[in-house]
Each structure stands twice: as C-alpha cells, then as structure tokens.
C-alpha cells in the first residue's frame, strides 16, 4: 500500500470503522412483531449476540450523558464527565500516596543491598496480586472507619497496586547512577543530604518518571475495580450499576470513556517524562 501524508489520520479512522462495523454486525436488534391491528404480539432481540446493544441503540441511550456531561440528576445518574471527575479525584489521591510511599522504598532498595535482599522477594510476591484481592483486605483494615471505609479501601488498593512500577524503576535508576557522579561527591566530601539532592535524585529522575507513568496507568486501571466493589459514584461504579439495571448501552459508554481518559493520562505523562529525559 502506498503511504500518503494523511496516513496518520486515515488509517486509524479506518481501523476504528472496522471495529465499529464488526460490533454493529454482531450486536442484537430489537424485532417487534405486530398483528393485523397493529397490536404488539411479541418483542424479541435477534442477532449473533442478542443482548449486545448496537451502535444506534447505544447512541440513543447515551446521548443525554454525553450532551449534558456535568448534569447531576441523582446519586448514580450524572453526566459522564462528572463521574469521570469523581474517579480522577480518587485516583489522584491514591496515586499521590503511591508516589510518596514508593519513591523512598525505591531509594532504599537501590542504595542498600541488605534492604534489597530483605524485601525484594516480598515485593516480587506482592506485585502480581490483583486489585480485586487487595480491596476486601482494605475494607477489613478500615472497618472501623464506618461510612468512609469504602473510600479508604479504594485509596489503599490504588496506592498499593500502582506503587510497584515506581518502586522498581526508582531502584533501578538509583543503581544506574554513574559511578563518576558519585566519585565527584566523594572527592568533594558532599554531605549525605547534598549527595541525595544534588546527585542521586537528579540522576534518577528519568527512571522515576518512567515509573510514575506506568504507575498512573495502573492506578487508572484499578479505579474501575475499586468503584465496582465499593459502589462509589464514578465511572466504574456507574458501569457496574448500569449492568445491574440492565442498561447495557451505558457499559459501552463507560468503557470508551475509561479508555480515552487512560490514553490521555498516558500521553500527558509521557510528555512530562520526555521533558525530564531531554533535560539531561
């Protein structure tokens, strides 16, 4: 295929159209049978996956949520962007906790072989644990908190799941600090704090930002699970509630929004990351 200047635009659109077409073809369709008087005899859905709403149905059903993105009609009936902001707020707090806890752990792992030997196996074991497993534990830990237990458990889950890339990347970054820079510190007899802030942290920043970007991706991934299980208002909670109320169109809307927000977050972080990489 000949490449043209507009490939970057045309090809992705083509890809999206193919997927949308496949979806529409597989999705169900409402078939209404009427008798001679025009009375409805039966209503049924037909198609390869009868329960899956098609594009037109999805649009009709979601229009209101997209057109009035910030409306608040009820606790679980709000504009989609309003829900997104609730979720983003929760992610922001959980992610910040993850960074505040993760960076020092990463530095300890990178600086002290003893610390690394002590905790590395534990980290390798805890790292693959799913958010769905951490959340119930969080609920138990914050049982005393009463009404706030759900929020605290969600924050706990986001923090602990999204922490690992930051921890591991920081540790790798600290170990990769060129010996020359450390020698400069030794020859000049820099104090420990000076060595940390003038040499170690600046030299590790590019690695840390790679960790931050991966962590943010995971934090956003976790939010859906956390909201589902705690029933908080948010884009994930909305998704689960609409599944329970049999409004399947809104599941699709939620998925698309979650994907778009995740994509935008990743782009933003990679811009910041590049800034720090090119600064050196």
């Amino acid at each position, binding site marked *: 295929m000949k490449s043209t200047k507009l490939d970057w635009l045309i090809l992705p659109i083509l890809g999206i159209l193919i997927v949308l077409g496949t979806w529409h073809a597989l999705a169900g369709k409402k078939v209404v049978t009427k008798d001679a008087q025009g009375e409805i005899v039966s209503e049924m859905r037909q198609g390869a996956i009868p329960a899956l709403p098609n594009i037109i149905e999805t649009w009709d059903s979601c229009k209101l949520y997209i057109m009035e993105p910030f409306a608040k009609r009820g606790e679980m009936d709000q504009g989609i962007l309003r829900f997104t902001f609730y979720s983003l707020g929760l992610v922001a707090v959980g992610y910040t906790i993850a960074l505040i806890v993760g960076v020092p752990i990463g530095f300890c792992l990178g600086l002290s072989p003893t610390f690394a030997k002590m905790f590395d196996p534990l980290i390798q074991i805890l790292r693959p644990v799913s958010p769905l497993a951490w959340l119930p534990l969080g609920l138990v830990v914050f049982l005393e908190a009463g009404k706030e237990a759900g929020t605290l458990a969600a924050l706990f889950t986001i923090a602990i799941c999204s922490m690992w890339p930051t921890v591991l990347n920081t540790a790798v970054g600290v170990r990769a600090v060129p010996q*020359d*820079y450390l*020698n*400069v510190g*030794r*020859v*000049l*007899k*820099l*104090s420990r704090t*000076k060595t940390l802030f*003038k*040499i170690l942290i*600046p*030299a590790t920043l590019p690695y840390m930002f790679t960790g931050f970007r991966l962590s943010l991706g995971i934090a956003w991934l976790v939010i859906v699970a956390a909201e589902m299980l705690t029933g908080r208002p948010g884009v994930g909670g909305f998704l689960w509630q609409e599944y329970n109320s049999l409004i399947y169109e809104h599941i699709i809307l939620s998925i698309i929004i979650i994907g778009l927000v995740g994509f935008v977050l990743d782009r933003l972080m990679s811009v910041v990351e590049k800034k720090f990489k090119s*600064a*050196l």
Partner: protein
Amino acid sequence: MAFLELKNISKSFGGARVIDNVNLTIEEGEFVAIIGYSGSGKTTLVSLVAGLLKPDTGSLTLDGKPINGPGPDRGLVFQNYSLLPWLTVRENINLAVESVFPEKSTGERDTHVTRYIEMVKLGHAADRLPKQLSGGMRQRVAVARTLAIQPRILLLDEPLSALDALTRATLQDEITQIRRTDNTTILLITNSVDEALLLADRVIALTPGPGATLAEPFAVDLPRPRDRKTLNHEPAYKHLRSRITEQLLSFNAARKTTLTKKLILPDILPEDLDAPRAHRPPRRPGEIKEATIA
C-alpha cells in the same frame, strides 16, 4: 620529608594485580607526569592517590598524614570531566565551593566562584549547562571546579586526552599558566610524551600492566617558559624525547614477545574495474606465473 609519598603500593582487581610495588615521592611545588600505555593502570594509580580506591599493600601519605579516603586536599580532575549535567557551570563549581568552604558567606562564595570561572575564561558561559559546551570548555569547567577548592595537590587524570589537538594545546598553556601563578603541586597522568615534556619537571613511565610499576624517572631540566615551537629544535628536548619513547617501546616489545600469531591472507588480488577486459588478468597471487621486479 616528601610532600606526597607512595610506598610499596599494590592493588589487585579480582585476582589480577594491576599495580605492583609502586614507590613515588613528589616534593611540594613539583610537577610530575606519569606516562604509560592505555590499560596499564594509570587511572588506578591516580584513584589510589585521590583516595577513591584503597591499596592492598603499602602506604600513601600527603604532607606526613596518611591518605585514608577522598578529600578536598587532593583535587582530582576526571578524565571524562564528570560535570553534573543538571547543574550550570556556576552551580557545578558552587557545589564544590559550598561543600569545601562552608564558612564562606553567600557573597564571598559568589566572588570566589566567579574568580575561577574567569580564570578559565568562561565568564560568558557561566549560566550554561554542560551539554551546551564544547569538550574543551567542559574540561575547563572541570579544572576550574577542582582549582576552586584550592587543593594542596592537583591530580590530572588524562585531562586532555578526549580533546582535539588545537584545544589540547590551548589547555596545556592554561595549565602552565595556572602552575606559574599558584605554584601548585601537580601530578599529571598522560599518554603523550610531548605533553609530559612540555609541562612537567619530572617524567616517569609506568610499565604496562598487569603488575604495572614505575620505571626510572627522567628529570626534565628544560628552561621555562617552554615554547612548543622552539622546544622541537632543542637538542636536550629531542634527546629526552627519544629516550622516553625508546623506553616505552621497549616495554611494548617485551609485551609483544609473548604474542605469537600467524597472519593468513586470503588468496585474492585487487581488480582494476576500469581496465579493458580483453584477456582475464590473474585474480589470485597463486595464478601469477611471472613477476617484474623493479
């Protein structure tokens, strides 16, 4: 009492003895150049003096006091400059000054830093980052950073080896000038005989490793200031130069005798593509039946 004294220094890495039984004394104000092949342990030697490495055997003393670790009394200029890339020229130097002279006020520190930036003629580039400087400018910053901590002895570890010939000459002149004004004791590590003879009072060759040690020193009693152009014609210079080169070559010959390798060339001759192809010329040395010997 010698100013810097190394006695029976040896250092091994992973069982391989890099430096063996090195003895060296340097008087205060003396300029000593150590010359040797790359990989002969020059950087190891200077790292030992700087205190970045600890010797396996022997002792090092500076002004009678044993050297136990790195310290600002020995100013090391690294081979690869080792400027911190996230700090500007001024910040790089200031970091050193701040750490070595904590008693100075901010204003005093500023004047101090500015003085050394001016000394290496980088006033116009004081607020630039290292990546915005050329190799020669970076090395000057590294020199200024080291001089700014006012070390008792200056350790130069092949400071000019990564630079082009012209920049190298300029920096050599600057080192001479700094030497003349401050009368600092200098230990220069180099791989250039000319550089050593131009700058130093005494030139010592390091025998190639493993187990490198110092050979007999050559006293360089050429008058100062030494001029690169006239030096080349001076008989004393030429004599010293050939003696040092000879010594270095003899090390190399001693090392080469242990290497035996038979060179096998492919049986192919280069072909002239422009030549008319009336008859096929021989393509292999084996095909040539007769040869004209001029």
